[in-house]
């Protein structure tokens, strides 16, 4: 089975648990180690957002319908034996906390019937400060949710208003404090390169984040996606496009401050205190199969050396062995641990140019060799597209079937 070796990577913090988390001994086995559930609803849309979500009234009957639909999907997946090896669960959105206390409880309770949620499981819920209530947090935590990812984005109120967020910095701090009363595993997102953001205000956001006691911080540059209000504002001249050089400087500042406060960078955008890396996200970058449930949810499975990517249960892509291997190497290089020289060497039979591509990456200063592994350099972090693009270009991407 292709993913057994990868499994070890994923659960390096708790080896003894491997393969034993399981409901009933005769349940069929599956390759899926991760489960993603998508909640495509928000109270409002932020100006930069292009995710699969939409603004909806909190009393809309559609929310109940969607809950029922998800519960049917979970039961079906259970019957098909797809949930037997799940180790990480991630409820993302949209804004899952906006889905509502009762519906979330229904959902997590249903999951807890099919998946053995224990201390070794990682179960993340995405939430926004304004819609995560204390009661909701308490009940979900009791049912097994043990990681909360809060969409904070900034600790500067004027920046939050500009982004169209529904909370201010005080609400963000209060939400973090409230979660930390029960659960210490709190992750937040920060965005750099917001118009009018300054180096100083960015430093403030990072320092505020550290002070709140969160264990995981993601740092993103503001990206202008097509067909968003932001792209229209830029097209009309109402907003200035983000300055790449400034964003680079801000990402560099985060890369300097956060490690000094105990947050190690383990992926291009992810910083965590020891033991608090997001195992679910790491599985995305490690070729580990995951199941996606719900509207717009993506999934991935390996069939021998081939790979399939799914969207809402439909196969949308088939990757040949070389392509799937190149994807693993490319995604592996998003992480600070990188990929081993041995992995690259063994890919040579599928991708003849791969060793010379990595040699070139080293020459270009995008990659270094450390402890028998290729790892991104500071330059490689900032010029990620150059790095990933060169790896991906080593295989012919025309052959991907849809």
């Amino acid at each position, binding site marked *: 089975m292709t993913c057994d070796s990868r499994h070890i990577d994923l659960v390096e913090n708790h080896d003894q648990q491997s393969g034993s988390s399981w409901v009933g001994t005769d349940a069929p086995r599956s390759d899926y180690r991760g489960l993603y559930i998508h909640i495509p609803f928000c109270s409002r849309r932020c100006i930069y957002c292009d995710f699969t979500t939409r603004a909806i009234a909190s009393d809309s009957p559609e929310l109940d319908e969607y809950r029922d639909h998800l519960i049917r999907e979970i039961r079906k997946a259970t019957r098909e034996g797809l949930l037997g090896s799940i180790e990480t669960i991630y409820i993302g959105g949209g804004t899952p906390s906006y889905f509502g206390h009762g519906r979330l409880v229904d959902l997590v309770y249903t999951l807890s019937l099919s998946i053995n949620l224990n201390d070794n499981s990682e179960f993340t819920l995405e939430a926004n400060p304004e819609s995560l209530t204390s009661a909701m947090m308490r009940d979900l935590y009791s049912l097994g949710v043990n990681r909360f990812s809060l969409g904070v984005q900034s600790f500067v109120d004027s920046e939050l208003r500009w982004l169209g967020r529904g909370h201010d910095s005080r609400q963000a701090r209060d939400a973090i404090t409230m979660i930390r009363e029960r659960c210490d595993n709190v992750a937040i997102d920060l965005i750099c390169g917001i118009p009018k953001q300054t180096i100083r205000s960015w430093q403030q956001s990072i320092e505020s984040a550290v002070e709140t006691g969160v264990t995981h911080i993601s740092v993103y540059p503001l990206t202008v996606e097509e067909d968003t209000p932001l792209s229209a504002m830029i097209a009309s001249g109402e907003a200035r496009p983000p300055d790449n050089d400034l*964003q680079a400087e801000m*990402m560099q500042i985060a890369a300097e401050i956060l490690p000094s406060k105990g947050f190690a960078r383990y992926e*291009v955008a992810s910083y965590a205190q020891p033991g608090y890396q997001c195992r679910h996200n790491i599985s995305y970058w490690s070729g580990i199969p995951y199941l996606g449930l719900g509207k717009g949810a993506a999934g991935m499975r390996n069939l021998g050396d081939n790979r399939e990517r799914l969207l809402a249960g439909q196969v949308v*892509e088939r990757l040949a062995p070389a392509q799937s291997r190149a994807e693993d190497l490319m995604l592996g290089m*998003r992480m600070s641990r990188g990929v081993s020289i041995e992995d690259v060497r063994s890919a040579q039979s599928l991708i003849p140019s791969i060793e010379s591509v990595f040699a070139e990456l080293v020459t270009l200063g995008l990659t270094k060799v450390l402890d028998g592994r290729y790892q991104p350099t500071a330059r490689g972090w900032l010029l990620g*597209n*150059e790095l990933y693009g060169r790896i*991906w270009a080593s295989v012919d*991407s025309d052959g991907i079937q849809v």
Partner: protein
Amino acid sequence: MNTTTHIRNFSIIAHIDHGKSTLADRILELTHTVAERDMVEQVLDSMDIERERGITIKSQAVRVMYDASDGQTYQFNLIDTPGHVDFTYEVSRSLAACEGAILVVDSTQGVEAQTVANALMAMNANLEIIPLINKIDLPAADVDRVRHEIEEGLALPADDAILASGKTGEGIVDLLEAIVKRIPAPKGDTAAPLRALIFDSYFDAYRGVVALVRVVDGHIDKHMKVRLMATGINIEVEEVGVRRPANLPVNSLNTGEVGYLITGLKDPADVKVGDTITLEKGGVHEPLPGYREVKPMVFTGLFPLDGDQYSDLRDALDKMRLNDPALIYEPETSHALGFGFRVGFLGLLHMEVVKERLEREFDLDLLATAPSVEYHVYLTNNEMLAIHSPQDMPDASTIEKIEEPFLTATILIPPDYVGAVMDLSVSRRGTFVTMQYLSTTTVEMKWQIPLSELIMDYFDQLKSRTKGYASLDYEFCGHQPSQLVKLDILLSGKPVDALSFIVHKDKAFDRGRILTEKLKEIIPRQMFEVPIQAAIGGRILSRTNVKALRKDVLAKCYGGDITRKRKLLEKQKAGKKRMKNIGNVEVPQEAFMAILKVDE
């Protein structure tokens, strides 16, 4: 019919867009030459590119039979000519095959530069000219003004100009009757030995070169043994025929008639436009006047973006030349661009058309370098080199003098724009020749301008500075000495041969500075800083930098993002593929043409 009394050979001449092809369509319709169901727009323009651009590149000859009001049937040979100044020689040969010309003038636009140029050519060819004022159905038609312009500007009587609309068909019968009455029948000696003029040729994959001919004296028959006088080739006629417009073989073409001729010759270079055909035995010794070798004026490097397409490009050029003997090319090697060809063209339009056809019809991705002209470089050892590419320029210390081709440009403008044309032409090293009022609304200016300046954006500038009113025509007037230097462009300290150009020494500093600034905008930021320098010899004239790219990262990449982000990388890769990698620098194609867009 062995006399010429019922033959009328004529051409339709016009400025671009004045409705020549539509008018030809109406004539074919009215004489039932083309069945209605086969009627397409611009029947005589068979290439896609001709139809799309509304231009005629190849000559055409079509025979129509017209039952005139006098009860007789006449044989009309309509010879459609290229309208653009690039093809002046071809036009002159086509006109030499005619006795008359219909001069089409748009009733809303009036007389324009090519109207004048074409009318003058027709007069020089001693043709009977029938002015036709077209598009009279348009509300903006101003027949009186146009009549006045024709009389004033062209010194042609316009009282009996035909008033017509190619669109509605109005006036077409008047035109056909005028052709019968006003254009003379061909003169020629039916009993004399054969003399026939080749006025164009095209290539047929099965039959070889097909020549379009006009019999001047005698007759030309199937199986006759003939001689092509300029190339000295003796050959047997395989087939003669007329075009209606499809080829229709006949036994013989007689004095005054127009048709086609197939000999089985495969190389278009053997069948030259303007050559005279006579009998192999007992033929004439004097060819028809007017023949000359066609010489390309503008040269550019064509390089396949994908080096593997080099041999495809060679094959494509070989095929293209079959229908376009004016096209010449030789291999060229560039450090920056690899293997390609230096290709000579009659002019800029010819160049654009050929490049577009190569890409479209042969599925090639081509990079064109900035066009150059033919420089005559006299060395200190008295040798003369004809240089078509800046790369071939010898070391400055060995050069005695350099000559460059000059043109006489004829520009027609409303009087308000005289100053604008002055400014532009002087800035492009033009020398004023003459100025004359053709009418109260039209001034004709003549300038002597180096061809190298004209192929910069002169025409675009002329149009924009005169709000589109100016029209331009030009003719070659010989090589003259100029103070020229070769300007090199260096990227990251290394000269890029494909970006070098030859420039007047007084202009070198400005052009160098503007071009480096332009390149800075065009060349995207790379992983390293890219210095851009302009230099003459070892002397740096100007310098600028493309700053290094600091950040290029798609930071968020979770489950659902992976496919999307990978596609973005692929898009990025495809974008890079359209660029040329020079040293470590990715250079977009437009960089090589940037010199043409130097707006001073």
